[in-house]
């Protein structure tokens, strides 16, 4: 605290972004007049090379020992300016950012008042920087193992990539099998290759990979720690069937008396309480649905157990809590589809022959409820006319989802084509608002449907669907002809959009990840950091962050895996050294700080009878500093004295 504080203030114009609302000349004059600073300089773009050079040269020429850059949010360029200062020999923690863009020039119009406010913010930042002390980043060892949450195609790809890079991965999937929604699809656009055929080899690769620890019927229950050192609790829910013993003989399902809807087939067919989600499920094992089974507490029935020759069934299995540490986390918890029950104009999902796109995928699938023959749910007849309604519940801010899910035009086109391939004399009519086919070979796929294979496209929204005898009457408008249209259909397929899955919503709370206004996980930057979350070490892949097709999902998964592997590849990570420190000369050992610390980072060292901070655990919230009755515990570079001075400066400037 003894050396003279030589503060340099660097004001950024940010082109016109700051300069058009803040009078830079006047601001510099005010700062020079009001505050004790060594130098005030400006630059068109402080973040540019010339800007950074100005900073470096001034530090050396003027022997600056404190630096303020008045520019954009610290989230943008704090690292840029801190490392520039470091190159000039200044401890990076002696550089502070005064945000005069996001919190001044972009939100105010009155130039005089904006300039005044910018000057106060700089004044307040000066009070902070002159109290800042040089800090050294803490070095912490990295746990070289990754956690992937969600076992859809995104999670599968991410786990395989990280494992192939040589690191251990734990893949946690809520349901009894991996595969996600892709396992429910029949064929995939734009190539029409069979979804199962391209997915199942990857699922098997997961189960066989020596570096992948697959936990199905499992959920993450708590996450603690930080990048490089996450401490995670996972609850493995009982499956009641021993995966290693089950030999898939199927004797159990024959005797099980409980019949429920089969969710894999979108409730279009029944299953038993003991079941395998689908034949290629991974792990390859049956599972008992504990909600409906009559054998689990109270034990009323044990028919399956009685017939199981390999004794794989165990009603006494208990949930297991697994605690593990990870260096990085990838969230790939996927989507749900917008419920057709929400769409009143199309009958609230009450009519059996008005179904969703995902339902139709099951009707198209060889392993589906109709073995791949398209039969309508009401009477099992093969429909001769099928209407596909695009944007069902999408792009409708007044009543439904405001956004475009970008895959539905393509999957409806795919559905119409597949239908034509199976029912040669059938008529397929697509009602659309716009056909959106932005993707490699997507426009060609649509042209093929519309021009070569005679799928009918009607531009216009369907306003209503009503029952008419054993058919459905679809009413809409052809907006190209400007006429009302009515079509009789045997089956109507609603192309519903994607919404964040329930699991995505749960995990966002658990990991404290921000969501966008639609509830999808928010990326750290929508353009430049599409697979990073705002929390370092936590990455996002696939539809958890927004609607995507499979190619985009897989690219994101590989991107997130590469990001995670970058962390796992380093032995040590640097951590913010802004942590609590105790002044033992005034501390009265009252334990208040110990009680308020959310991390258990503060303890009484019995040997020396001193309150001590465990540096690796302290996250720097400062809760202890606010609670200490004697002001004996402080947060480094955020002391009470400093904050008070900052407040004063804001009010007096």
């Amino acid at each position: 605290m003894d050396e003279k504080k030589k503060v340099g203030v660097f004001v950024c114009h940010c082109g016109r972004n700051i300069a058009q609302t803040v009078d830079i000349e006047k601001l510099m004059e005010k700062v020079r007049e009001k505050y004790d600073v060594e130098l005030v300089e400006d630059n068109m773009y402080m973040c540019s090379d010339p800007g950074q050079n100005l900073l470096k040269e001034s530090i050396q020429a003027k022997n600056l020992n404190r630096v303020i850059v008045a520019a954009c949010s610290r989230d943008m360029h704090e690292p840029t300016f801190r490392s520039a200062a470091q190159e000039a020999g200044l401890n990076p923690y002696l550089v502070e950012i005064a945000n005069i863009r996001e919190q001044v020039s972009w939100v105010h119009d009155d130039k005089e008042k904006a300039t005044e406010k910018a000057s106060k913010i700089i004044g307040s930042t000066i009070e902070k920087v002159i109290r800042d002390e040089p800090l050294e980043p803490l070095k912490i060892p990295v746990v070289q193992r990754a956690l992937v949450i969600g076992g859809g195609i995104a999670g599968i790809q991410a786990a395989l990539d990280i494992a192939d890079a040589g690191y251990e991965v734990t893949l946690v999937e809520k349901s009894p099998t991996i595969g996600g929604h892709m396992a429910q699809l029949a064929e995939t656009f734009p190539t029409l290759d069979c979804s199962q055929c391209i997915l199942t080899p990857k699922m098997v690769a997961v189960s066989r990979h020596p570096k992948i620890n697959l936990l199905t019927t499992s959920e993450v229950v708590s996450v603690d720690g930080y990048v490089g050192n996450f401490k995670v609790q996972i609850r493995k829910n009982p499956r009641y069937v021993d995966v290693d013993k089950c030999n898939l003989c199927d004797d159990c399902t024959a005797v099980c008396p409980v019949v429920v809807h089969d969710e894999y087939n979108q409730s279009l067919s029944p299953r038993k309480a003991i079941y395998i989600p689908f034949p290629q499920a991974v792990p390859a094992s049956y599972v008992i649905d504990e909600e409906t089974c009559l054998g689990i507490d109270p034990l009323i029935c044990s028919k399956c157990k009685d017939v199981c020759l390999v004794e794989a069934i165990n009603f006494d299995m208990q949930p297991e809590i697994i605690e593990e540490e990870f260096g990085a986390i990838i969230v790939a918890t996927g989507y749900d589809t917008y419920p057709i029950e929400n769409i009143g104009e199309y009958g609230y999902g009450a009519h059996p022959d008005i179904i969703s796109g995902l339902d139709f995928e099951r009707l198209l699938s060889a392993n589906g409820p109709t073995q791949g023959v398209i039969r309508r749910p009401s009477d099992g007849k093969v429909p001769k006319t099928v209407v596909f309604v695009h944007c069902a519940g999408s792009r409708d801010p007044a009543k439904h989802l405001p956004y475009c899910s970008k895959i539905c035009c393509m999957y409806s086109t795919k559905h119409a084509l597949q239908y034509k391939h199976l029912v040669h004399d059938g008529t397929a009519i697509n009602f659309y608002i716009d056909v959106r086919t932005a993707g490699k070979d997507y426009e060609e796929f649509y042209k093929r449907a519309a021009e070569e294979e005679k799928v009918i496209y009607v531009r216009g929204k369907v306003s209503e669907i009503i029952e008419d005898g054993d058919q459905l009457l679809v009413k809409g408008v052809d907006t190209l002809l400007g006429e009302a249209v009515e079509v009789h259909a045997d089956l109507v397929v609603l192309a519903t959009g994607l919404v964040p899955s329930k699991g995505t919503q749960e995990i966002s709370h658990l990991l404290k990840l921000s969501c966008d206004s639609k509830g999808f996980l928010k990326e750290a930057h929508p353009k430049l950091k599409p697979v990073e979350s705002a929390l370092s070490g936590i990455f996002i892949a696939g539809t958890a962050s927004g609607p995507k097709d499979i190619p985009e999902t897989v690219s994101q998964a590989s991107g997130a895996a590469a990001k995670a592997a970058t962390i796992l590849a380093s032995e040590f990570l640097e951590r913010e050294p802004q942590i609590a420190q105790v002044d033992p000369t005034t501390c009265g050992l009252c334990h208040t700080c110990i009680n308020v610390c959310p991390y258990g980072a503060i303890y009484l060292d019995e040997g020396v009878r001193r309150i001590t901070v465990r540096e690796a655990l302290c996250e720097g919230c400062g809760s202890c500093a606010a609670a200490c009755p004697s002001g004996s515990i402080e947060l480094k570079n955020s002391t009470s004295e400093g904050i008070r001075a900052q407040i004063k400066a804001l009010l007096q400037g």
Partner: protein
Amino acid sequence: MSTSKQEQESGIKNPNPKIVLFLCRWCSGKGADLAGTSRLNYPPNVLPIMVNCTSRIDPRFIVEAFLDGADGVLVTGCHFGDCHYKTGNYKAYRRLSLVAKLLKQVGVNPKRFRLTWISATEATKFVKVTTEMVEDLKKLPPYWSNENGGDSDE
């Protein structure tokens, strides 16, 4: 601080209130930044200071801000359940609710102190809250309009 005739008629007693605005680094600070990125607009009367967490805020900071000349103090943090430091906002809520009570008891108009939760995506809420508070405080006289400060004479 002189008020124009027009302002007096419209009930404006303090055309330029000074409000100290506490932002947390993880939620409301980012929400404030998003207001900028989205080019929203709010009055320049709110003077920001960023702390890592609302739980860093010593109740004394609030009281002292008034003594230092603030007309109002606005504390913003993460929504319950969203705190980056797990429970910091609950602690802030407990501590600062007491401050609110205390201020009221000593005769400070409750409109002068507000505690609210703003997420990183709630730029519009940020704008609404700051604008409202500025509008409210324009209708109160400056905090130091009498020698003892506060609103006890009202």
